[in-house]
């Protein structure tokens, strides 16, 4: 089931003891890391897991000697193969990085230089840290590119980063990190920005290279599924402290710390919840919706992109429809067409009996209030210059509600979404991401919509916050009979909240049906690939045990 291998006899590669990092300029000398002890042995994978702000990344930056100016190591030691790194000068650390310790990041596009060919970037690493002749550098660069399983190495060697896919860019980053055969690889959320199928390949690649080279890996992630896939040993962090550590098997089966239990309980289960009874009153019906980009041009027809192909579904009151798919599958295009934030190329969108697909801006207005939206990014979905009250009452005022009534309703909704009354007078930056997402939901609910479109509405949140927001949506749906179109790339979230699921690939719907069927017994090969790629899918995190075996249906 798990990888847990015994590394107790292997030589220690990295050991931090009592590592403490503080913010010296704050009152009270705030500690960002409190006495962190981490040991990583030869060819071991150590996962550092925790929610945002827990200090995972600060730990990795401290090891790399790359702490931001404001942070200072206040105590403890960091030993790499027995050598203390803290007293080393900047120049000594620079030699050590890349040669002995390498790092890969979450976003490979920003970590690569956009104006250099990727092959040259790999060779540059060797140029800086070795005195190999140019021909040998090239030979090694090509060899490492083959090892990370890049197709058509000759072509990619000469490509610029923007010409590669996200997965290929991350492979280049890994090649750059490993070309000098470092003893320690630090991977900071390296698969978070990737699609699940790509994530699976990258995780397999890291594992394979580790086997071949014996590299020790410090893997930082917030995703318990990824932990279950790749970790030998797990350290759970909370507010700059390690609350628990141990072999992955023991930690997932018998978590000792209360915080670890909470974290595991919050991981949504992949097994779909039972669907609610089907109602007949369809509130939203989409028929043969198409969206085609491009194709204009006066002299020559420009290339077209078919972002949505003949998408159709029916959603009835009080139910949730999930649209799942990887990036570029067209799920957000469908959502934006339904919202009429973009104009569909063809098709019908029947909202409460009337077709809104072709309505003009003015004719659309009376329908707008029935259809509300919650976006992914809680930082940007509220106007930063407006108080929460102003944001909440904007919609009702547009439809003629009096200011006093709207404010009273806003105050009532603050209770419903679990925020204090005085939140109304404050500004968005004074709230956390989860709180802001609650406010965005309250703003949508102020309009008493029939349909709520949630576009990756919980994707930017930590798992525990995610669970709370999903609960809130569930409760609002039950009380107000709102129908929800829930767009997500996360099958676990889809399994928890959806009655029906649409699976999209390259703009087309490949599978459509009740969540319990689509997710438990997928008929289409792509759906099956998505489910197979979901990290930690064979582990039931909430109950600390293996998932009961559910046989996959045979392909239809």
């Amino acid at each position, binding site marked *: 089931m798990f990888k847990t291998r015994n590394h107790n006899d292997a030589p220690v590669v990295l050991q931090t003891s009592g590592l403490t990092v503080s913010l010296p300029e704050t009152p009270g000398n705030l500690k960002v890391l409190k006495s962190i002890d981490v040991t990583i042995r030869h060819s071991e994978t150590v996962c550092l897991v925790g929610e945002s702000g827990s200090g995972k990344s600060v730990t990795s930056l401290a090891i790399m000697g790359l702490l931001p100016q404001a942070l200072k190591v206040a105590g403890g030691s960091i030993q790499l193969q027995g050598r203390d790194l803290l007293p080393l000068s900047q120049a000594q650390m620079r030699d050590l990085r890349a040669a002995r310790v390498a790092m890969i990041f979450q976003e490979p596009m920003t970590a690569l230089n956009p104006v250099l060919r990727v092959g040259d970037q790999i060779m540059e690493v060797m140029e800086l840290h070795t005195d190999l002749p140019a021909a040998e550098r090239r030979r090694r660069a090509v060899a490492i590119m083959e090892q990370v399983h890049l197709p058509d190495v000759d072509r990619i060697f000469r490509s610029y980063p923007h010409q590669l896919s996200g997965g290929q860019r991350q492979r280049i980053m890994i090649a750059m990190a490993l070309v000098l055969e470092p003893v320690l690889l630090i991977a900071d959320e390296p698969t978070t920005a990737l699609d699940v199928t790509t994530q699976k390949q990258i995780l397999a690649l890291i594992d394979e290279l580790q086997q071949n080279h014996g590299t020790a890996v410090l893997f930082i992630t917030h995703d318990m599924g990824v932990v279950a896939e790749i970790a030998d040993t797990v350290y759970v962090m909370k507010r700059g402290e390690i609350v628990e550590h141990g072999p992955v098997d023991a930690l997932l089966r018998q978590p000792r710390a209360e915080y670890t239990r909470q974290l595991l309980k919050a991981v949504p289960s992949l097994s779909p919840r039972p669907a609610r009874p089907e109602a007949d009153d369809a509130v939203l019906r989409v028929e043969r919706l198409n969206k085609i980009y491009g194709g204009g041009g006066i002299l020559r027809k420009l290339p077209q992109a078919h972002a949505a192909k003949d998408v159709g579904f029916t959603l009835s009151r009080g139910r949730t429809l999930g649209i799942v798919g990887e990036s570029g599958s067209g799920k957000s295009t469908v959502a934006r067409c339904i919202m009429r934030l973009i104009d569909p190329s063809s098709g019908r969108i029947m909202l409460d009996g009337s077709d809104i697909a072709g309505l003009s801006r003015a004719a659309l207005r009376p329908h*707008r209030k029935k259809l509300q939206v919650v976006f992914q990014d809680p930082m940007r979905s509220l106007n930063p210059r407006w108080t929460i009250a102003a944001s909440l009452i904007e919609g009702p005022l547009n439809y003629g509600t009096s200011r006093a009534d709207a404010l009273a309703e806003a105050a009532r909704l603050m209770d419903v979404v679990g925020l204090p009354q005085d939140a109304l007078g404050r500004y968005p930056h004074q709230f956390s991401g989860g709180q802001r997402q609650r406010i965005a939901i309250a703003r949508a609910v102020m309009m008493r919509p029939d349909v709520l479109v949630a576009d990756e509405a919980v994707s930017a949140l930590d798992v525990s916050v995610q669970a709370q927001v999903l609960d809130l949506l569930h409760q609002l749906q039950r009380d107000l009979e709102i129908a929800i179109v829930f767009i997500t790339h996360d099958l676990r979230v889809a399994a928890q909240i959806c009655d029906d699921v649409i699976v999209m690939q390259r703009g087309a719907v490949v599978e459509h049906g009740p969540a319990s069927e689509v997710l438990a017994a997928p008929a289409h090969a792509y759906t099956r690939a998505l489910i197979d790629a979901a990290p930690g899918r064979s582990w039931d995190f909430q109950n600390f045990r293996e998932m009961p075996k559910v046989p996959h249906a045979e392909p239809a």
Partner: protein
Amino acid sequence: MAIPQPTSAMQPVLRWLRLPRLGVGTGIAAAILAVIVLLTLLSPWIAPHDPLTMNPLARLKGPIEGHPLGTDNFGRDILSRVLIGGRLSLIIGIATAAIAVLIGLVIGVVAGFFRTADAIIMRMMDALMAIPSILLAIALVALNGPSVGSVIAAITIPEIPRVVRLVRAVVLAAREEPYVEAAIALGTSMPKILVRHLVPNTLAPLIVQGTYILASAILTEAILSFLGAGVSTETPTWGNIMAEGRLFFRIKPELILYPGLALSLCILSINLLGDAARDMLDPRLKKRAG
């Protein structure tokens, strides 16, 4: 994180005005500008002499009784001329900045928000930008005769495209923000979205740009007057006082020195205030300051 701020005598005043704490340089700049504006505004009452009254007996005198800065080649009081002249210079500067910002804001918001209007408006702006303001001023003065209106128009027109580009860039970025899309979903009408969600984003860069236009307009007016394409020489401005004074520069440099000094101080303090406004309104800098 609190960054230690230099303190100055201005701090209590600023606190009373509910303005954020400012650096010493900014405080001094504000004080200088306030003095200049006050003196020029009150000039009709405080100027010791009429700026146009000639006195053939007291030509090109140094500081003498009744003429603290001396007199010019017609025996006119230099102090009075600089004070009165500053009034028109400042009026032209403020008017130009206000008109350019207002017109530029409206055109820029339209260009940034409505894609179809964008292409047409921006090509027109490119054309306007190609006209040098000096040439335009000479043409306008030739058509309408030297007047304050022609000068303001000549300086304003080439400034408008710069404001339009700035506003358009801000609006283009802001219109993609989810909160704007959420407002569309909430049924907020287009004019309301423009005024309430998009325009506030442009104010910070506009205030900064406005101070730069203000300073450069005073300077351009001085150049135009100097070239004889500005306001008629009967009305003193800092520019035409200097233009007249250049003939006697070698005998009496004060003719250029005093209006030049007033002009430099004024522009320097306006630019410093503009920089301070930019720092104050830049959210990234604000975050760092607390």
